[in-house]
C-alpha cells in the first residue's frame, strides 16, 4: 500500500530525546527529497514525565501542524508509556489509522489480549524490540535509545536510507542548534560523557544502523513495501 503522507506520533519520557529524534527523522526525510515537518508536544516537559513529539512526511507540501491525533505510526520510546500510562492519549494507540505501525522499545511484549485484538482488527503491525539495549551495547549509553528508534523507523518504512539518516544526525550535532535551555544542558552532559563530538556522532550512527538493519529484515519478512513513492517517481508523475 503506497501512501501520500506518513504522520508519526512519538510518546516518550522526558530526557529520552524524542524531540531530537523527531527533528532528525524530519531532516533525514527532507534530505531524501520528501516534504517534512517536525514539532514537539506544546507544553512543559520534565525528566521521567510524559513527553511527546511528532513528524509529518509526505510527497506534497504539508500544511498540517500540531499534535498528531490520527497517526499512521506510533513510536513508543519507553515501556512506562504503556505500563504506567505516561502518554497524552489513552490508550497510547488511540487514533491509530488502519494499516498503521507501532514500534515499541521494550524487552518484553507489553500488550494485552484486548490491545492485540483491536490492533489486529485495524491491521496495525507491531515491531517490539529493545532500542535501549541497542543503545547500551553499541553506543555505551542509554541516551542513544532515540538513535535506535530512528533506525527502526526508517528500516521498516524504507523511505530513506542510512545516507539520509547520517545527514540528519550530523545536521543535529554539528550545527549550533537551540531547542531549549534544557536540551542545551543535556547536550553538554552528553558531550562530556563522550569527550569528542565526532565520536558521539559515529556511535549514534552505528546505533541507528544496527537497528535499521534489524527492522528492515523484519519488514521484509512481513512483506512490508516502502511506505511512500520515491520522490523521483512522484516528480515523474
Amino acid at each position, binding site marked *: 500500500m503506497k501512501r501520500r503522507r506518513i504522520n508519526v506520533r512519538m510518546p516518550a519520557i522526558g530526557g529520552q530525546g524524542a524531540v531530537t529524534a523527531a527533528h532528525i527523522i524530519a531532516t533525514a526525510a527532507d534530505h531524501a527529497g520528501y516534504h517534512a515537518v517536525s*514539532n514537539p508536544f506544546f507544553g512543559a516537559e520534565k525528566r521521567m514525565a510524559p513527553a511527546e513529539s511528532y513528524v509529518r512526511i509526505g510527497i506534497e507540501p504539508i500544511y498540517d501542524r500540531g499534535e498528531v491525533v*490520527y497517526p499512521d505510526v506510533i513510536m513508543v520510546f519507553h515501556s512506562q508509556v504503556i505500563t504506567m500510562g505516561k502518554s497524552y492519549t489513552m490508550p497510547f494507540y488511540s487514533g491509530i489509522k488502519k494499516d498503521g505501525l507501532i514500534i515499541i522499545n521494550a524487552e518484553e511484549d507489553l500488550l494485552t489480549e484486548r490491545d492485540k485484538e483491536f490492533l489486529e482488527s485495524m491491521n496495525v503491525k507491531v515491531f517490539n524490540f529493545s532500542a535501549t539495549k541497542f543503545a547500551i551495547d553499541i553506543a555505551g549509553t542509554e541516551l542513544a535509545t532515540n538513535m535506535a528508534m530512528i533506525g527502526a523507523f526508517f528500516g521498516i518504512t524504507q523511505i530513506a536510507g542510512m545516507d539520509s539518516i547520517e545527514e540528519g544526525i550530523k545536521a543535529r550535532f554539528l550545527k549550533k542548534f537551540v531547542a531549549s535551555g534544557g536540551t542545551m544542558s543535556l547536550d553538554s552532559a552528553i558531550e562530556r560523557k563522550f569527550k569528542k563530538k565526532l565520536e558521539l556522532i559515529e556511535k549514534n550512527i552505528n546505533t541507528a544502523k544496527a537497528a535499521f538493519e534489524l527492522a528492515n529484515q523484519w519488514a521484509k519478512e512481513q512483506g512490508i513495501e516502502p511506505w511512500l513513492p520515491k520522490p523521483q517517481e512522484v516528480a515523474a508523475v
Partner: protein
Amino acid sequence: MQKTEQVQYNRAGQKIVSPEYLLFEAPRTKHFMTGSEVVKEAVKRSSVDASVSYPITPQSEAAHMIGELWVEGYVGVYFRGESEFGVMSEIAGCAMAGARTITTTSGPGTLRAMENFPMWAGSRLPIQLVLMARGINSPLSIQPDNLEVSFLLDTGCMIWHAETAQELFDMIIAGFVVAEQPDVHVPIITVIDGFFISHTREAVMLPPDDIALPPYNPYKAPMPPIDMEMSPGRFLRDPYVMKSNYISYATHTSWQFEVRAAIERSRPYAKHLLRGLIEEFGDPEGEIVFVASGTAAAQAKEATQILIHEEGIKARVVRLKTLRPFPTQELIQAVQGAKYIFVPEFNVVGWLEREVRRALYGHVDIPVIGSPRVAGGMTMPPEFIVKEILQFLGKEVKHVV
C-alpha cells in the same frame, strides 16, 4: 559616461540592498529550522538598532536568539526589561530616539504590556512586535490559542498573521519597510500561532546573510525623533490633549482617525511586499469556503484537500495575511460563488468570525459559520474540520475512526 556604483554597508558589515532585492531577487538556499530560529535570521538581515526582551513561553527562544545577534554585532542595543510592561515602554524610548526596533512577546505578556500598544501607535513609532500567540489565563495555558489577538485589533497597530516560518521571515523584513513609510509610520505586530510555528521545524528558503535592509531613517518620520513636543503630538511634556477643552477633544479625535488612516495607507506597500493581502487556495469553484488566518488557514488547507480528493466536495480557502488593515474588498471579491463560509479559529471568542461578518455585511448574502473552533491549546486536526463539514452537509463521516 561610466556609472559608478556606490556600495554601502551597515554596522555589521552587511551590504545594504533594496527591500525588493532582499525579498524577491536575492538567490535563496534551503534551511531546515524552527520559527524561533527564523526570527533570528530575519532580524539578522534587517539592520536592527535595538531590541528589548523578556522571557515568556513560547517566544523565549526567539528573544534569546536576538540577544545572540547583539553578541555577534548585528543588533546595536539589546537588554532584558524588568517585565513586559517595561520592555514595551523601553522599546518605545529606543524608537523615539530614532532606532529601528523589534521585540517579541506571548500570551499574558501581551496583556501586561497592553497600555503601551496604543501609546506606540499614537506616538507613531514604527516598532515591530513579533507576537507568538499562546492564549491568556486563567486557567493557565501555555499552549497555542490566539485570543490575545482580539485585544490588539483596535490598538492602532498594523497586524499581520503569518502561516509558516517562511512567511514569518518575509513578513518581519517587509514589516519594517511598510511600518517606516513616512505616510504610514505606525507599529507593526507580526503574529504567528505560538508553537505551531515557533517550535515546528520545517524547510525555509533564506537569502544570503551578508546583505541587509537599508537602515531606518528617523528624519523621514512624520514627527521628529526625540523632540515630540511639537504639534500635533506634544506627547512628552504638557500635552494639551490632557486638558479638558474642545481643542483637546478635537485634537485627540482627529489624531485617532489619523492613526487608523495611516494603517489604511499601508495597503499598497503591504500588497506589494506580501504579494497580496490574501491568498486563495483550493478549487476556485469551491462552494465551501474557509476564511482563516495563520495556523487555522493551514489546517483548513489540509482539510480542503481531503474534501476535494476524498469526498468530492468543492472547497477552498481564503487566507487573510493582514488583519489590520483588514482586506475587506479582497475578501468580498474572493467569497463570490460561495454557498457557505466557515471561519475556523484557535480561540474561544471567534474574533475573526466577527471581523468577517462585519466586512461582508451588506455586500454578500452568504451564511457565515464560526466553526470549527478550538481553544486552550488544543490542536485542530484536518480530520476534525472535515467531520464538521460533512455533518453540516448531512453526509456520512467515514474518516475518523
